[in-house]
């Protein structure tokens, strides 16, 4: 029903799409996968009218979809959930869901608040979300719930074509299950669905067809049944993947590098104890809103704990700001890359050195620019960040390379303790492996590492120990080689 032919799109010098053909049929889930920067989001933005293609045609039921406006696409029955939630903090959930397509008391009349509210409650119930939030300001909601609001917004449109750009990136497995249920219902109702995800294991569960993009071109388009996860991954990166070798758990003795006891933050997590040894990787695994990230943030002094003691190498710390943490050798790679991480319009060198200005100056207060460039060049090589050089702007990098830049920032000066929050969120498989390799290397060189993640395979592959966090409490601990099912069950609250 929807057909794209020869779509070309350039951003300045970047050739995001170079002649892509793509189509969706009614009652089909068509998955779109590819490395970071392959052009997936760009493609769907062109369908949804958010961007205009430089060349190519889009037809819906054989008629050209002419104007590149989001309003026109919505009118044509195309609903989109974008990668980043696009919501209005000052407006309520109900208003957000209907914004742009308000229900009215009569044609040309005022907004029908009551009818809107009723529909929203239905929708939220269907998605398994507490429908009490209908009148809450969106700014007061946690990110995951915001993402769900954003999804209900698309569902509210009763669209013929539904586009989901990485809806699962910040959802928990349980939320994803509910989402898939709703998607399957829609498919049964004849809706055509475009589904973008980096979680390749999801594809078999939900999709009927898979199109793989690489460098803005289609490299494969096949029924899901003819593909394996491994085959898709290899198509994405363009070479065969070596399986990550499983390594044995390491043993730790002596004083721990990081020692946490009784750490508490009201309403977020309860007294929390942890000790991490030299070279150890400990994962805090939890579903969204569990408090795992909140613990990491507290250890970095961003949202400081109310009570509790933290020691690094036996020294007690007072963690009120990230500066306190940094002074004690604690570094953090935050979870929200765009907001908390990068200085997008600035160069890689700028991004790397900003956290280490004291370290990179010969005369106090004055920057040693030669050294800065040298360090940047070195890290670009070591982490194989794909960029022309230290002066390349971070905005011009793909998501994965931006994430590597963020990690590189913490390698300028080797941290004693490294906190990572969702280190591979929205990162493609190739970059993911590289990031895991870098983290392991850091551990081997003696840093203590804490990973807060809701990506179960990542947690199990990376960590020496996994602490499962639920409702602000550690509910279970696993060693290396734990079974996925056990960990997930603990996190979801079924076991224990």
């Amino acid at each position: 029903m929807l057909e794209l032919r020869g779509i070309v799109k350039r951003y300045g010098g970047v050739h995001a799409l170079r002649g892509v053909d793509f189509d969706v049929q009614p009652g089909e889930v068509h998955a779109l996968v590819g490395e970071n920067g392959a052009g997936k989001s760009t493609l769907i933005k062109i369908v949804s009218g958010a961007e205009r293609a430089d060349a190519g045609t889009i037809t819906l039921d054989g008629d050209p979809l002419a104007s590149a406006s989001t309003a026109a696409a919505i009118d044509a029955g195309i609903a989109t959930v974008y990668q980043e939630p696009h919501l209005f903090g000052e407006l309520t959930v109900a208003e957000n869901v209907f914004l742009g397509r308000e229900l009215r008391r009569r044609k040309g009349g005022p907004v029908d608040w009551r009818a809107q509210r009723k529909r929203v409650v239905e929708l939220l119930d269907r998605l398994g979300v507490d429908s009490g939030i209908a009148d809450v300001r969106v700014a007061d909601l946690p990110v995951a719930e915001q993402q769900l609001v954003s999804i209900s917004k698309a569902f509210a449109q009763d669209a013929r074509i539904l586009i989901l750009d990485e809806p699962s990136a910040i959802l928990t497995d349980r939320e994803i299950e509910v989402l898939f249920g709703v998607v399957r219902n829609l498919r049964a109702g004849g809706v055509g669905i475009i589904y973008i995800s980096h979680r390749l294991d999801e594809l078999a569960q939900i999709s009927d067809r898979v199109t793989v993009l690489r460098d803005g071109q289609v490299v494969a388009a096949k029924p899901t049944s003819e593909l394996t996860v491994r085959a898709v991954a290899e198509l994405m990166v363009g070479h065969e993947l070596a399986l990550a070798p499983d390594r044995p758990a390491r043993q730790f003795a002596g004083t721990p590098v990081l020692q946490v006891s009784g750490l508490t933050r009201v309403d977020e997590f309860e007294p929390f104890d942890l000790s991490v040894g030299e070279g150890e990787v400990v994962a805090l695994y939890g579903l969204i809103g569990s408090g795992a990230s909140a613990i990491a943030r507290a250890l970095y002094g961003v949202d400081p704990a109310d009570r509790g003691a933290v020691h690094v190498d036996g020294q007690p710390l007072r963690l009120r700001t990230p500066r306190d943490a940094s002074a004690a050798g604690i570094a953090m790679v935050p979870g929200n890359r765009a907001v908390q991480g990068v200085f997008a319009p600035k160069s890689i060198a700028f991004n790397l050195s900003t956290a280490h200005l004291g370290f990179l100056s010969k005369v106090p207060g004055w920057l040693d620019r030669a050294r800065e460039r040298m360090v940047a060049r070195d890290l670009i090589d070591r982490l194989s960040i794909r960029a022309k050089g230290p002066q390349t702007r971070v905005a011009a990098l793909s998501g994965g390379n931006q994430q590597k830049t963020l990690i590189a920032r913490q390698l300028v000066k080797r941290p004693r303790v490294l906190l990572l929050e969702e280190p591979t969120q929205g990162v493609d498989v190739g970059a993911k492996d590289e990031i895991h390799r870098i983290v392991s290397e850091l551990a081997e060189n003696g840093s203590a590492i804490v990973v807060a993640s809701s990506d179960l395979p990542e947690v199990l592959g990376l960590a020496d120990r996994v602490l499962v966090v639920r409702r602000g409490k550690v509910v279970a601990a696993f060693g290396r080689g734990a079974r996925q099912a056990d960990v997930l069950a603990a996190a979801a609250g079924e076991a224990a």
Partner: protein
Amino acid sequence: MKLPKRDTGALEYVLTERVVLLVALLAVVLVWFKVLEGGQYLVAPFDAGYLASALESMVPLCLLALAELLVIVSGRGGIDLSVGSVVSLAGMAFGFMVGLWGWPLLPAAVGAVLVGGVLGAVNGFLTAYLRFPPLIATLATYYAYSSIAMVSNDKAPISTKPVQDLSALTDGVKLPLLPAIPLQVFTFLMPCLVIVWLVLTRSTYGRKLYAVGTNDVAATFATLSVPRVRLSAYVGSGLLAGVAAVVTVAQFASARPDAGTVGNGMALPAITIAVLGGVAIQGGIGTVGGVFVAALLVTWLNAGLLLAFEDSKGSQYQLLALGVVLILSALLNTLTLRRYGRIT
């Protein structure tokens, strides 16, 4: 993964490097007036001597545009509407110290600049620590400072003998091969330009300022003290306004309580020059070079327009020219960003 290609054509260079564009514009303006002069369309020669003496009116404006550079770069809607009032109030303080209390020049000048710094610190505290939107905080202090300046000497200017003698600070200096350039260009403007340039491009503080202005959440995660950096941008703005106050008092041989707010005031032209110089309102972007060339451009364009008309039309066309240049350069920004995705 494909690397973004960058075709480094001349057009892209001119458009994305704001200083280059402005220098080109400046050349156009100078050549244009030269041609007009040759065709005898000007009432007086548009020569080096005239351009040099026009620098006198550039000095305070350029100083205040530098002040705006600092606060706009600091981000989160950074702007300082109060600089004109700070000029008035710090100028009155200078007038009191020199003209009524008989302080020697140097301590008085330092004192006035410090008064500016304190007034800037109030703005900075309001915006950085109490998190007032800068437009609001500085609108409020614009009102408050101008009122205090007015009350300070019961509305009267201070122009006692010592204040009148200050105008020696702004005499023209004759250098070999050059026309007489107002002294304050060397004694006040150049040092400030160099210091601000060094601080912004070579110091770690400059890095912090650009980082905070670009993304303050990320700056917090990168262990920067965001409020302190912002506060100091406003202090810097106040200090520069204090310098502008000293220059203004000296130039006019009189400390006037409405020096920086009379007419359209000094803040609006200063912001205009900063923006023309490529300082981006959203923060994190802007250079000293751009601001300096923009100040030159506006000054010489204005000076030329005054010679293009025998009567008062010249000062009216200055308004038009400023508005049109501002809109054109902003349109050019939009186009450049759309086409090349960046601008400096």
